[in-house]
């Protein structure tokens, strides 16, 4: 169901004769029967997908070495006392809150972290294979506004919006995982993530990437997820959740941020520990400098995690872009976002770790051509780069607003990009020299058996229109935005996700209630 789309694959294949031969061309007698082809050719190395590489291996190594140098020379500021202790124990050089990392410790952590992480769906079926150049797309999170697909209003997200987000994720075939698509505002403020998770897990079977305010909230999420899977061990063996925690670049790690990463590592739940970086702001204005800071920040979390739980699943990456100097926004639409993300993906590949990247978003404040351009551009580059998790499909207004309409549009674009990632097969069946000979100069291919056998491989548009002008006018002269809106509304009105059993729903609610009580106790109300 969640298709694996490997990018950057090359294989060598020696034999051309085992292509399944379907029916012959209609012109009997003139066509050579390919299945009787006697030849075998060696030395045929093919691209099974397009090949895209921003940085060479040597350049990746230079970036990694730069990060290791920064960690050894400059170090990081660590605000978590638990983490300070862990680093001290590991053999790092700790002075107050400043930690310097001997490179060999960091390299050891990189080696012990797994290079492949398999994420299941809610039922435990293995769904996302985070390894190699496999690419999976999904929405973003923590936006402070949502664009209502029914009213067009830009307003603060509520829990029902998260329900909607889950339904949309569940329905869209090229969206592989869920994120909250907006910080929930009509619940207890410190439990917005917990409520978001409840809304997501009850309304989609797809994997969920979840952030949380702190360790308590992460525990709440783990408890809910374990209830769904029928126990902690079952959850650890087939996790359908991935935790998300952020550092505070450059080189600063909050107590909550690091403690969450450590928590996830101990719980053996996959975690993304990533910085949010804008060039010229929290990192140097040069791209290479950004990559160094991004890698260095991640490694701090990795070292802590591997020290407490060797082999714990960690995912690197981040949201990286340039800062627009006049408005000071972190640009979601700039080509630099794609370039930086693709560069970091190369480094992650070099390090042998799964990568969390960003695409499908825009700086546009309205559904328009700029939104479409920026989303499509980034989705293409992320796909070509082979990043394993690509989040952000639906982020508009430089991430401040989430839009399910944009996510629906992105779903269509991802289909187009998947087609491109399929590459070009070159063998006798596809070269079709016999077919061209049978058709001849001036003929046509519409009725050829070869055409019948292959035309379904064309990408099938659902929202993209190929109508001629008059029929398009006759159908209402709609723009794509209108078609996207209609489809989004249709999904939200009609799609029925698989329901969890009542017992499980009850257990989930119990966790939420317990969390509410705890938070109420904290604030003294």
């Amino acid at each position, binding site marked *: 169901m969640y298709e694996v789309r490997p990018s950057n694959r090359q294989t060598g294949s020696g034999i051309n004769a085992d292509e399944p031969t379907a029916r012959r061309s*209609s012109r009997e007698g003139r066509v050579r029967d390919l299945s009787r082809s006697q030849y075998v050719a060696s030395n045929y190395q093919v691209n099974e997908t397009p090949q895209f590489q921003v940085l060479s291996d040597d350049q990746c190594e230079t970036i990694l070495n730069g990060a290791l140098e920064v960690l050894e020379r400059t170090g990081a500021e660590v605000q978590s006392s638990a983490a300070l202790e862990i680093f001290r124990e590991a053999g790092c050089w700790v002075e107050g809150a400043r930690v310097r990392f001997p490179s060999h410790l960091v390299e050891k952590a990189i080696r012990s972290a797994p290079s492949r992480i398999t994420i299941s769906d809610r039922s435990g079926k293995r769904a996302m294979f985070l390894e190699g150049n496999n690419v999976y797309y999904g929405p973003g999170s923590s936006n402070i506004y949502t664009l209502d697909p029914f009213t067009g209003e830009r307003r603060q997200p509520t829990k029902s919006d998260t329900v909607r987000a889950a339904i949309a994720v569940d329905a869209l075939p090229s969206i592989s995982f869920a994120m909250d698509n907006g910080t929930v505002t009509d619940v207890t403020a410190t439990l917005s993530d917990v409520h978001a998770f409840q809304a997501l897990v009850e309304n989609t079977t797809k994997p969920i990437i979840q952030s949380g305010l702190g360790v308590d909230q992460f525990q709440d999420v783990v408890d809910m997820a374990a209830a769904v899977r029928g126990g902690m061990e079952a959850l650890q063996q087939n996790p359908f959740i991935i935790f998300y925690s952020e550092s505070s670049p450059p080189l600063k790690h909050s107590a909550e941020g690091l403690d969450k990463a450590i928590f996830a590592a101990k719980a053996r739940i996959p975690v993304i520990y990533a910085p949010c970086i804008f060039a010229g702001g929290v990192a140097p204005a040069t791209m290479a400098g950004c990559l160094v800071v991004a890698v260095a920040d991640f490694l701090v979390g990795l070292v802590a995690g591997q020290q407490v739980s060797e082999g714990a699943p960690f995912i690197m990456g981040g949201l990286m872009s340039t800062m627009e100097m006049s408005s000071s926004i972190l640009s979601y639409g700039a080509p630099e976002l794609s370039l930086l993300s693709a560069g970091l993906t190369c480094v992650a590949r070099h390090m042998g770790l799964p990568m969390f990247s960003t695409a499908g978003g825009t700086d546009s404040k309205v559904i328009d051509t700029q939104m479409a351009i920026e989303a499509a551009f980034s989705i293409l580059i992320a796909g070509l780069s082979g990043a394993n998790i690509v989040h952000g499909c639906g982020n508009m207004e430089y991430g401040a607003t989430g839009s399910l309409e944009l996510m629906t549009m992105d779903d269509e674009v991802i289909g187009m990009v998947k087609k491109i990632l399929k590459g070009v097969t070159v063998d006798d069946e596809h070269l079709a020299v016999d077919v061209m000979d049978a058709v001849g100069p001036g003929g046509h291919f*519409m*009725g*050829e058996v070869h*055409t*019948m056998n292959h*035309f379904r491989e064309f990408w099938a548009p659902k929202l993209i229109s190929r109508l001629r002008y*008059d029929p398009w006018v006759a159908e209402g002269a709609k723009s794509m935005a209108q078609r996207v809106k209609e489809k989004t509304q249709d999904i939200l009105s009609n799609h029925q996700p698989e329901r969890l059993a009542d017992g499980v729903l009850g257990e989930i609610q119990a966790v939420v209630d317990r969390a509410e009580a705890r938070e109420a106790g904290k604030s003294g109300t």
Partner: protein
Amino acid sequence: MSYNFDELAESVIAGDSELSAALTQQALDAGANPVAAITDGLSKGMGVVGARFKSGEMFVPEVLMSARAMTAGMDLAKPLILAADMPSSGKVILGTVKGDLHDIGKNLVSMMLESAGFTVINLGIDIEPETFVKAVSESDADVVGLSAMLTTTMLAMKATIDSLAAAGLRNKIKVIVGGAPVSQDFADEIGADGFAPDAGGAIDLCKALVA
């Protein structure tokens, strides 16, 4: 006795020429009415295909496969039917006008019209106005369709219509035009009876003009 042609219609929908020929032969051997074999079997199946194509469930190559299956059956039934009794939606002459060699659009229209039950005389490419005139005068066609791909060759459409008028044939036949640079305005300008933007539209237009 009324023969059940459902399987025959299905074989057309499935685009299976061998099966449709076999089933047609079977029906004829069993004494079924050959005209009914066409109207209730072959054409009926093709009608379903046409509707599915319009709604986007079926695609051009499948339509052509089905058309081929229909023809396989028709070729067996036709010899048994008097010309006057032969079911036909109408007769259409098609050609790409003088100076123009592009014909895939016209050929698609031709195949789609045949699949909709029209008899089509496809003159080919680079057709002089005189050749159109000759074809019109020698057949009892209902419609003549002119195709052009270039703005320069579009002019030959007007020349062709004028030639038909000069030969006193303009009132005997409907003239429709099509092709990338053609539009309704242009069709009106040159005095054509209709314009269709694509093959599907051409079928509807011909049906309307023949009615």
